[in-house]
């Protein structure tokens, strides 16, 4: 028995490796850099790492390879696009995370304890959130380019575990934040168990853990269909959990609400890109030939998800929960892109993911700004008259909401149009009808928020809009610009996506 030394193409893997390196450095920084310099160092390190990684992604954007890591990852157009999207979204999210006011000074301290107060007053702020973010991002980067089940599972855990922790780091309402972390963790682990179990059955079905091997078995059609179906179903549960599709969505409103807002924004945007990226690859390449078996069920889930998200969002009173339900509805729309199973669907999904992700970060950036003396105000009733007090913030929030609603001249409209037309092209007319219907319902609550902000008189309860820091301002401006530009002139990005959107297999 001989061992072959693994051949790794470091260039192609460099975006992820850079991130991991940055994360490890971050851990060291946390340990060794003085507390005065720590925050700045961490921030620059993180942003630098991300930018470097993005540059590396740019360098490899024309590469295609099945063998970058012994067949464990695939580097191809969609993978590169998704990685770039994740990195861009991460960068603007990190700008929000940089506002340490959102994070507890010492996560280990008891809420309300002397210890907590002391660390707050002394400015002894821990900044572990940065390396955690980088670890999560590297998991996200790996998730959509994984090409065997082991890598997929590892990537899933790599992106999930840091997020569980990050959800519990909020400085205010710490009990809720910890509860969010607990819920996220338990349910996440629960769903990974399903994921893993599904993997086992797929392995049993095909005697292979690689995407290519499983696909060949499906094409060959000789295996035990029950194994395949259960494997697919359970694997899908794990993925659907991550994207927040009904009935695997239940964690998301609670976690979105409890987690620190910058983390919520990051999680909502980047995780969705990663999870849908993986899902697209799996369904477009591995399961494509078993379409007959999953398409009806997934369509049903998509329809229920769209309608459920839209309907429940109507009656929400908390802006973060409302955005959570809105993201559930959007998961439904995105599932339509998966179901479409054609090139248009892939392109549309990638566009949608990027546009939606950026707008989501922007929307949560606005949420971070609305505060009173005890921190963020997420009760919608206290957002009344925001347009009067801070028109620009309100206008940008309205802009993001309009993008979510899919109003023309915003990126959301192009996304919605392209994804629905792809679904229609594949014959999923029911999905399009349900999508249109739930868009109408969804419009109702987006508009309700706009009414609150613009057409209602402000209440005098100390709610105010914090002057955005430069970084937050940058996030807002970038995400607004992307939202508008992609709405008005999406042609360059669409061309780019179209040029790159072919999975190699």
């Amino acid at each position: 028995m001989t061992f072959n030394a693994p051949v790794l193409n470091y260039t192609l893997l460099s975006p992820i490796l850079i991130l991991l390196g940055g994360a490890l450095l971050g851990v060291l920084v946390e340990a060794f850099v003085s507390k005065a310099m720590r925050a700045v160092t961490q921030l620059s390190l993180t942003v630098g790492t991300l930018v470097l990684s993005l540059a590396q992604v740019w360098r490899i954007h024309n590469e295609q390879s099945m063998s970058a890591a012994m067949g464990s990852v695939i580097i191809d157009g969609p993978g590169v696009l998704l990685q770039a999207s994740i990195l861009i979204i991460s960068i603007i999210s990190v700008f929000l995370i940089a506002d340490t006011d959102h994070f507890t000074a010492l996560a280990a301290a008891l809420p309300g304890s002397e210890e907590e107060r002391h660390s707050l007053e002394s400015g002894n702020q821990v900044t572990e959130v940065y390396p955690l973010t980088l670890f999560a991002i590297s998991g996200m980067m790996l998730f959509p380019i994984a090409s065997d089940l082991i890598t997929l599972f590892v990537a899933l855990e790599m992106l999930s575990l840091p997020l569980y922790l990050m959800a519990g780091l909020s400085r205010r309402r710490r009990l809720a934040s910890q509860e969010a972390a607990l819920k996220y963790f338990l349910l996440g682990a629960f769903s990974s168990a399903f994921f893993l179990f599904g993997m086992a059955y797929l392995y049993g079905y095909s005697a292979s853990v690689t995407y290519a091997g499983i696909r060949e078995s499906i094409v060959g059609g000789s295996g035990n269909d029950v194994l395949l179906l259960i494997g697919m179903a359970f694997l899908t549960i794990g993925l659907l959990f991550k994207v927040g599709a009904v009935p695997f969505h239940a964690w998301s409103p609670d976690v979105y609400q409890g987690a620190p807002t910058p983390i919520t924004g990051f999680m909502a945007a980047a995780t969705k890109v990663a999870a849908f990226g993986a899902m697209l690859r799996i369904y477009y390449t591995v399961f494509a030939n078993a379409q007959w078996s999953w398409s009806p069920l997934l369509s049903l889930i998509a329809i229920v998800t769209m309608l459920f998200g839209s309907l429940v969002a109507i009656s929400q009173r908390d802006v973060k929960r409302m955005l959570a339900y809105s993201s559930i509805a959007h998961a439904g729309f995105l599932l339509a892109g998966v179901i479409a199973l054609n090139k248009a669907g892939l392109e549309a999904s990638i566009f949608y993911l990027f546009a939606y992700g950026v707008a989501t970060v922007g929307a949560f950036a606005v949420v971070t700004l609305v505060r009173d003396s005890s921190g963020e105000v997420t009760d919608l009733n206290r957002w009344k008259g925001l347009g009067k007090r801070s028109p620009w913030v309100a206008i940008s929030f309205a802009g993001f909401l309009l993008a979510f609603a899919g109003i023309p001249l915003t990126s959301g409209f192009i996304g919605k149009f392209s994804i629905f037309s792809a679904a229609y092209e594949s014959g999923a007319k029911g999905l399009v009808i349900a999508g249109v219907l739930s868009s109408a319902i969804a419009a109702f609550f987006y508009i309700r928020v706009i009414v609150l902000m613009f057409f209602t008189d402000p209440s005098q309860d100390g709610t105010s809009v914090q002057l955005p820091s430069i970084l937050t301002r940058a996030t807002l401006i970038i995400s607004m610009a992307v939202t508008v530009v992609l709405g008005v002139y999406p042609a360059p990005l669409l061309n780019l996506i179209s040029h790159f959107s072919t999975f190699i297999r």
Partner: protein
Amino acid sequence: MITSTTLVYLIALPLAGSAILLLAGRRSDKWGHLLATALSASSFFVGLYQLSLMLGRSNSERPITQKLFEWISVGSFKIDASLMLDQLSICFVLLITGVGTLIHIYSISYMSHDPDRRRFFAFLNLFIAAMLLLVLGDSYLNLYVGWEGVGLASYLLIGFWNQKPAYATASKKAFVMNRIGDMGLSFAIMIAFATMGTVSFSGVKEAVDHTSTAALTGIGLMLLVAATGKSAQFPLQAWLGDAMAGPTPVSALIHAATMVTAGVYLITRSNFIFDAAPTAQLLVVIIGAITLMFGALIGTAKDDIKKALAASTMSQIGYMILGAGLGPVGYAFAIMHLLTHGFFKAGMFLGAGSVMHGMNDEVNMRKYGALRKFMPITFATFGLGYLAILGVPPFAGFYSKDMIIETAFNSGGAKGIILGCVTLLGAGITAFYMTRVMILTFTGKSRWDDEAHPHESPWLMWLPMAILAIGSVTSGYLLSHGDALVNWLSPLFEHHGEHEELLSPMVVSGLALAMVAIGVAIAFVKYSRNEVASVAPTDVSIFTTIARQDLLQDRFNEAVFMQPGQALTAVLVKTDEAVIDGAVRGVGRVALGSGSALRGVQTGFVRSYAALILLGAVALVAAIWVVTQ
């Protein structure tokens, strides 16, 4: 047809007057009435000039046209803004501008104390212009413009003193009921276009030969509906009495001499249709006969001098319509009666105005009496009109009305006898109520209050009355001498064979005069012998009660149309709010409700969330099991 370039001035002059007066506003208060009168008069002179030209041409060359511009042209629907003056319209032109000018003159004095006199004259000029357009238009659509234009002018003038709510209501009523008639005209135009492809008079006339009788009957009936609206014929007569709310000169000009006779013009103008549609023609006669009696009966019970005259107008137009419905032989007589009626009725209305002018605007005849002494000129001119309307020879009505009665009798068969009797009876009743008016107003004892200081009107008022009185006396003779009008108009109408004579003219005249004598005698006995109560007695016969209420026309309309209409409106307003908008709001509420209900899934307990995931997994497995079985 000869084209002219001057026809347009007939209309343009008064129209310009109206526009100038309205746009200039108060600035023209000082001279507005003079300008308006002058423009109306100049239009009259243009008319006279056209008449003189027309007289100089041979029969077939008399009609002239002037195309102004292409008005509407879509596909085959081509309407030019084009005028036509022929033997028929010149009669109307002269009547409208002539009587119109006299009434302008009269109004200068009559309205001198009104702060809005300028506006009044603007409306009068507007009316003259619209009425001229009505009679000069060369197609039904052009006529329609004038038709609604006079309706507008009539609305404005009835409601001239619209600060009184009742007057404002009267003007609205007139407009709405006229609109119902206008709808008929719309239908007629639509049918004509759909079947004949044209709506010009000449085009329709040519197309009549190859058009189905059904279509022609339809057009005829719809034209009749239009005529009943404008000419206050049964069943659209109810507005005319209320229209007396307008200043008296308006009643004289619009609601006696000209506008209300537009229906007669329409039917006469459309003779080619009615001649080819006997059913429609028969209905014209019937409507005429009914209205003739209807108006006459109302007239017997009215104490308001203007309303009595209005009822009389309705009745007299009934005669004209009836005449026009008798076919080729009747058209000329209808027009003749129309012209003579224009003189004597306008004269009497102006007389009534003069009386009111001297009596502090009192209109109740029971508050008059013995005015003969105080207003001799008014009495004389009114009296001449009275004799004319009665048909006493040689006054105007004698010629025109007897011709209609005679033609009615001679229209053949039972129809002829019935119509003849109705017209005769109508003549008798006319004599009764007109005598009543004369007696109550001018003779007997004075019954007016102490504040009243009856006096004769100034010359500006009595001069027009006098001129009209001259017309009342002479017009009948002039028009019928040597069958002048009949011959003048004859090129326009188809001629069928000579009609058989049931009764000779002499016999008819004798019968008519007898009826008139009876009517006069009864009135004399009833009102001249007995004391007239200055307050209307209430213990009167059921017939009088009903007649005082205009034969219940308003009650009928109220019960059959207005109340159900108002109820329907109220119901629909509620339905719109509750049902249609309610459904919309209901959808919203359902969405909100189901959203709230679905929120219940989110209990906050991790275990229930895990259960949800497990449930989802179980459902998926179950689905797979079902699929693979």
